């Protein structure tokens, strides 16, 4: 995959690919492995060309066994490597959960920080791509619930590059959720400019910095005054469309992209909700006991006296993912978000 310039559109997929090759170029201990990631370049081609460029010792195919992939990543990280592993699809990552929950998440803690595991687990996730069953789960809550893991999910081409670079560089294990429906989305991003931005941002934090850092760094991606719509990953683009439509109805919506579920940028959340006094949380995953539930609870705890209306959620239904013919009824849509906005008590 060639490095795009500002004049041509860069895809989300090529941003991820370049993030990995830049990290591999910079640090010999970065290794990429998983199912079909070598010769084929991954079923989504995200690792395309890495084996050719860096050799079979740096990017290689494994036997078809997710626990084996995660478990050997633990050993590699113990022995000085920085593994970036790919789970082929969200629901195919479940065989690895014991390794993720019992070891990857806990190793630093049970060794009192003596053994840290700088592992990145890349997971293509979410629906909206016509995938058949077991290919469209939004499984972020399982990982976010597990102490010791970081959970990143980029919503833009720029973040795909910047956040994957940061995930690879961080000493903590990161579960990196890639919204499948965004893989072929494009933006006029210059990858070498992003590279420069990343490299010059090492010690920065806050609104101007791309770094998630230790405490999270949510971004207001659309300013507004009447209501805050909080979202992350694949739902952000849908939310932005809804905000656009709401503006035509005279509602000024502010949109917050969390970027990382863990660490969770509570201050950015509080700041936007205190500003607007109303909040809607949007996510693809089922709503019951979800990341959306947690966001809603935090708003209630921290912003109760600023609220003019109950906090509403627009999420997937509490059903197994209905693939693919009925998925449009399940996923949060622009209309459903607008309906939620309508329900907020506006007559105060």
């Amino acid at each position, binding site marked *: 995959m060639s490095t795009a310039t500002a004049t041509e559109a860069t895809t989300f997929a090529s941003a991820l690919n370049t993030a990995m090759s830049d990290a591999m170029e910079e640090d010999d201990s970065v*290794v990429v492995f998983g199912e079909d990631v070598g010769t084929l370049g991954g079923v989504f081609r995200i690792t395309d060309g890495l084996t050719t460029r860096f050799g079979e*010792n740096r990017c290689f195919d*494994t*036997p078809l*066994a997710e*626990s*084996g992939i*995660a*478990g*050997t*990543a*633990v*050993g*590699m*990280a*113990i*022995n*000085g*490597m920085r593994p970036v592993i790919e789970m082929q699809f969200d629901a195919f990552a479940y*065989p690895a959960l*014991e*390794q993720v929950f*019992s*070891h990857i998440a806990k*190793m*630093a*803690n*049970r*060794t*009192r*920080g*003596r*053994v*840290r595991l700088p592992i990145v687990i890349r997971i293509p996730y979410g629906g909206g791509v016509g995938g058949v069953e077991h290919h469209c789960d939004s499984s972020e809550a399982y990982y976010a619930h597990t*102490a*010791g893991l*970081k959970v990143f999910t980029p919503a833009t081409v720029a973040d795909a590059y910047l956040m994957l670079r940061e995930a690879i560089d*961080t*000493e*903590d294990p990161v579960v990196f959720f890639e919204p499948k429906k965004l893989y072929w989305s494009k933006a006029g991003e210059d990858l070498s400019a992003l590279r420069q931005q990343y490299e010059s941002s090492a010690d920065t934090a806050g609104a101007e910095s791309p770094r998630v850092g*230790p*405490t*999270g760094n949510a971004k207001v991606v659309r300013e507004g005054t009447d209501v805050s719509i909080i979202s992350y990953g694949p739902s952000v683009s849908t939310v932005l469309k809804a905000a656009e439509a709401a503006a035509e109805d005279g509602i000024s919506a502010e949109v917050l992209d969390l970027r990382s579920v*863990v*660490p*969770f*940028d*509570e*201050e950015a959340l509080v700041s936007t909700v205190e500003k607007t006094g109303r909040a809607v949380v949007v996510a693809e995953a089922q709503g019951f006991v979800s990341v959306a539930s947690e966001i809603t609870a935090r708003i209630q705890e921290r912003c109760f006296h600023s609220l003019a209306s109950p906090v509403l959620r627009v999420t997937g239904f509490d059903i197994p993912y209905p693939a693919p013919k009925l998925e449009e009824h399940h996923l949060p849509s622009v209309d459903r978000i607008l309906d939620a906005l309508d329900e907020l008590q506006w007559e105060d």
Partner: protein
Amino acid sequence: MTDNTTPHASPPSADNRADTSPTAVDSGPHSLVSPAAGHEKAEHASRILEASRSFGITAEQYMLPAQQQIRMLDPDGSLVPEEQQGTGPGHEYPIPEDDVLLKAYTSLVAGRRINDQNYALVRQGRMAVYPSSHGQEACQVGAALCLGEGDWMFPTYRDSVAVISRGVDPLDVMVSFRGDWHCGYDPKAYRVGAMSTPLTTQLLHAVGVAHAAKLRGEDTVVLAMCGDGATSEGDFHEALNFAAVFEVPVVFFVQNNGYAISVPLSNQSAAPSLAHKAIGYGLAGEQVDGNDMVAVLATLRRAVHLARENSMPLLLEAVTYRMQAHTNADDETRYRDREEVEQWKRKDPLLRMQKLLTAKGLLDEAAETQIAAAAEEVAASLRQAMSAEPEEDPLEIFDHVYTEPTAQLSAQRSQLADELAGVDAEEGTR
């Protein structure tokens, strides 16, 4: 070439066995060298063929365990005549040197003392739980003594004695059984993984450590330990398979102690032996008398040597017995009778080794006294340490979850700090 008249050189007679004639050795069993098997597979197979050829046997003969369990010491402590040890071409195990045997005995005595001390500490309520390896000490000691300094060990929760024999302070090994929240020792300092409770998960860590070393051109061997019950877990399969496919030097060491808590081996596996599982993955397997310190050391040392030389994994099954209950919380009378335990008592690894070394003139009363006194010293320091209340900072439970704390963890840490300060203040006013 292969001498088929030697009982241990030919595999058990079965219809589907490969031809063991010299021609077959030369061309190799077709299933392993078929050009249709694909480029990488053929390459892998040639490594096994290479190893088997150097012993003058077929790949199958190399991968299958020898005809009988490897045993060098009789239950009465006398050396088994060489032709009855179970060894044969490709399955030869030289007896370790005298100084190694004496060192092993010293560790055996210390290990037994530690096992029994810990058992007592739990009964006295000074330790929360202890999975004893009483009866399995030969395996424990062998696991530690077969490794070089740069090698790694990945133990289970029943392998405390192996970890201590590797040089980790007994108190540090025991803290998690006392109920502390961490594993006690620094895995990297000793090259010993944190003792793993989720069964067989650590085997994959072993494979990963060996793989990383191989990528860097280091010849680190990793000993991956598990029990008989654990061989039913999926990670056992995945670990053996990954190790074989990536050709990494891991020695899988299965201590078959007969029971997974209460469930006997017959409920875990229908394989002829656990060592037979190796061939299905393309690695060599061997079965050894796990209560025979000499044979355990001999087989482990050779497995480590072969793994290092050929950059290939091997599997060793040690047949032993858990003399005590699973832990102190277990009631063994519900699933096994006393008679069975008594039978195994007669195969005690310590007594066998003691008799051998005495007969060899390596052990006299003075040496015995000295070894026992050293073991007693370890037990005494354990007793003392476990009787003291651990000095722990409750706030540390927040400090290692992430490299830097999240905002939420910082807030929770402050909350607990306030609560602790409140308790202190209250106690101060009393």
